[in-house]
């Protein structure tokens, strides 16, 4: 996948996680939603790791343990047109 395709895929899976997270905030006992949240969270982690290994850190403060790429030098989201 190209960088943009991978970012789009991350955003799609992350959106599922955001939705399930908010739903679980008011339905914490829903076992199906918890199971979905768990599997999509794992998928999101895998996609982020794939992105970071290829293109560099997506997160600061120690949450992107990769030695390639550059937090400072990569584009900020509003610079991508």
């Amino acid at each position, binding site marked *: 996948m190209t960088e943009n395709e991978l970012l789009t895929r991350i*955003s799609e899976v992350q959106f599922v996680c955001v939705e399930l997270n*908010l739903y679980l*905030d*008011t339905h914490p006992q829903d076992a199906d939603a918890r199971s979905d949240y768990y599997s999509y969270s794992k998928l999101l982690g895998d996609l982020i790791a794939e992105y970071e290994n290829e293109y560099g850190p997506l997160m600061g403060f120690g*949450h992107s343990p990769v030695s390639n790429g550059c937090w400072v030098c990569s584009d900020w989201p509003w610079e991508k047109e």
Partner: protein
Amino acid sequence: MWIYQKKLEFPISITNPDLGVAKALMAQYGGPDSELGAAMRYLTQRFSMPDDSLRATLNDIGTEEMAHWEMIGTMIVQSMNGASAAELADAGLAGYYTMHGRAVFPADPNGVPFTASYIQATGDPVADIAEDMAAEQKARATYEHIMNLTTNEQYLAPLRFLREREIVHFQRFSECWNILMELYPDGDQNKRCR
């Protein structure tokens, strides 16, 4: 604490800018029903919420609002980048340009700067959650007004996404309201005092 992720929640690329829309978008960057107001309102109210679900909902929706605030700022800056002073003036942004250049500043389309008086934290969960439900509907109405001002798909796609989020957040806050009604079936939320 928060961890920043160097990406937008929804992709934005404004290559065909419309300064009139950029001006309208300032309603959601620094207006009374803006994403900034939403984030501050929820992240502040969560400290005095009496229930786990309510604290979690305010924390997590407040966090998502910060990502929406970033999306609005991105649309505004990508719209103003490269615009001449004359073009900004023609779009009704002469006053804005005089004070802020092409920077992104939290003011509404009429230039009124953001203020904390746009939000409340009463310490009364019923009053606060009712405010939050109203805030989501006011933000939805504002998005619809902005969308009525343009046919440009580069703005409409992220605006459709953001409008839909207001609806989902309203649903979650409605559930919070129902949780509160179960917590205080006699309507006296002040009994929570401890």
